[in-house]
């Protein structure tokens, strides 16, 4: 297994280089450094000398391949350099400040969603073939048809403004942060509820017709025990695949929720970068996003091996 993990980590390197190349090419196909300098220099009409200086400090005056090697090397060593925006803040300081709120929201909503959705799916599967089942699946389709944005807006309006259970927005560090991330986590869980629950229900129903379930029932084990112990273990494998494929989706949640609820996380940093047309920051975010996703993919395969003794990692 260790050999397998090492091989997967080594395979991640060319993929990350591919991601860097992709963003790099994208960047140079469309913008020239001169435009960028003009956009970001605070002086109204920058002199050619000022533009040259700006290009020099941000390294845009070197040959293209050298720039690519330099930025890629920087990204791999987590030396993200300075932002292209006014002031040229170091990207890594901002990332160090803002990773924690994002991590709190993402991990809490990830775990909470998994628990809630799996339980709901098991309950729906328990009542399979009844009116409750068809009502629940229809409700899932209805909930899937509502945009994430509306969940956020309505969530803030009802829980924050009308019922005053949670703060409307903002963030404080330390234990107090739990108070502030409650609303975003609730919104994330509700918004992601329908599609996952529906999917998990089909995974569970796929298992329910297997021979081992009939055997367990024939042995006289109660239906709920069959469902929650025997079936759940076997349905875990597709569930693991699906939860990991949801990791890139956490970034979307992070971008929308943090910006909307004014939480100083990575997602909010990214929205600032969009508004300032700050490509250096976007590039760093894309790299971190890809890194987290790849780590997630590797962890799934390890998770498989742990959940299913038949899976051998070769």
């Amino acid at each position, binding site marked *: 297994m260790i050999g397998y993990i090492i091989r997967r980590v080594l395979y991640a390197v060319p*993929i990350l280089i591919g991601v860097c190349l992709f963003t790099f090419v*994208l960047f140079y196909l469309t913008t020239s450094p001169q435009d960028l300098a003009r956009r970001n220099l605070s002086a109204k009409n920058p002199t050619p000398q000022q533009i040259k200086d700006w290009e020099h400090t941000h390294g845009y005056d070197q040959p293209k391949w050298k720039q690519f090697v330099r930025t890629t090397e920087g990204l791999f060593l987590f030396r993200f350099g300075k932002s292209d925006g006014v002031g040229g803040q170091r990207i890594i300081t901002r990332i160090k400040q803002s990773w924690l709120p994002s991590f709190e929201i993402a991990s809490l909503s990830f775990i909470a969603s998994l628990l809630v959705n799996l339980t709901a799916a098991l309950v729906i599967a328990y009542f399979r073939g009844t009116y409750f089942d068809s009502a629940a699946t229809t409700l899932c389709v209805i909930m899937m048809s*509502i945009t994430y944005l509306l969940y956020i807006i309505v969530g803030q309006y009802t829980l924050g403004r009308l019922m005053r259970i949670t703060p409307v927005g903002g963030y404080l560090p330390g234990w107090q942060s739990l108070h502030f991330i409650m609303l975003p986590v609730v919104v994330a869980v509700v918004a992601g509820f329908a599609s996952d629950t*529906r999917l998990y229900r089909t995974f569970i129903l796929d298992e329910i017709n297997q021979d081992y379930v009939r055997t367990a029932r024939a042995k006289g084990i109660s239906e709920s025990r069959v469902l929650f112990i025997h079936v759940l273990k076997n349905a875990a494998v597709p569930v693991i695949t699906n939860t990991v494929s949801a*990791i890139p989706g956490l970034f*979307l949640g992070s971008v929308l929720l943090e910006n909307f609820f004014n939480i100083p996380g990575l997602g909010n940093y990214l929205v600032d970068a969009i508004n300032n*047309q700050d490509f250096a920051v976007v590039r760093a*975010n894309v790299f971190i996003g890809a890194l987290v996703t790849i780590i997630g993919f590797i962890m799934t395969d390890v998770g498989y091996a742990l959940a299913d003794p038949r899976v051998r990692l070769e």
Partner: protein
Amino acid sequence: MYVLKSLLTISNALPVLVAATFIFALTRMKKQPLWAEAFRRIGRNKLAIVSLVVIAIYALIALTDSFAWQDNKDKPPVSLLMRVFAAAHVQRERTYSAPFAHYTTGEPHPHKLKGWHLLGTDGAGFDVLMQTLRGCHTAMIIGGFTSFLITPLALLFGMSAGYYGKLPDDIIQYIFTVVASVPSILLQIALLLVLGPGVINICIALGLTGWVGLCRLVRGETLKHRDREYVRAAKALGASNTRILTRHILPNLLPVVIISITLGFSGLVLSETILSYLGIGVPAGTGSWGNMIDGARLELARDPVIWWNLTSASMALFILVLALNFFGDALRDAIDPRLRSN
């Protein structure tokens, strides 16, 4: 005379062309047993028929908004939808007004409205019903054009990876692993930052991130079909690789591809609202539900609450996406009963 001349533009010809191709494809498909059976099954499903009618109404509204012509040389082209509203004497007001209201809202001294507005007016005084209906056009373009971009890309890459294997497969798998490992929202942001705003650019950004899933699916299906007897028989008869791929394997992939595109369409329509929220969506002035919902953030904090903008845009979006989801599920069940969700 000039009116007729201004009707003959590419932007007017395009929707006609799309509709004609669609109808042509449907009539061709009806002759094949597999699809005839699928259509029959959909016809028996009441929910699917209702959904289809709803989708058709949205498409029709989108069509009326895409035909535009000029009254004379100096005026900008006005679409059929806008002309209908102009004919009904729907005028621009000063600012917000509630549905059915007679006076404006949010002004210290409310003004009398010039006309009557079924869904009220927005901050710039435009009729909300008109703005909502104009959103259909954008939604349909984003869903349709993106699918149009995704399909050939995914088919080309997926089929060649699955059929040829070896080096082409390695290269294509590498490309789609690279694209898939960047969270799609980050990639869309990066693409839209460099491409700039615009409906077509949104389609390109959504297409470049969305083709991966379909490509993976097509590759897997092609792998399954590659070693079947009918492909081996075609090979033994001396058919070329291109002929096998286009005449033998492609028709067998179509059901899966069509199901996947129909189910993906609703996701694309929903993406528009998210991009609008992030400020990289449809430019202002184009009808867009995303921009309307995004604008409602501030309107809900006002007193009195401006709720009609948010409600109409999100209901319009919700009904379309719901119909698409129901129809997609019905289509999947009709084409391939093995894939049934229950």
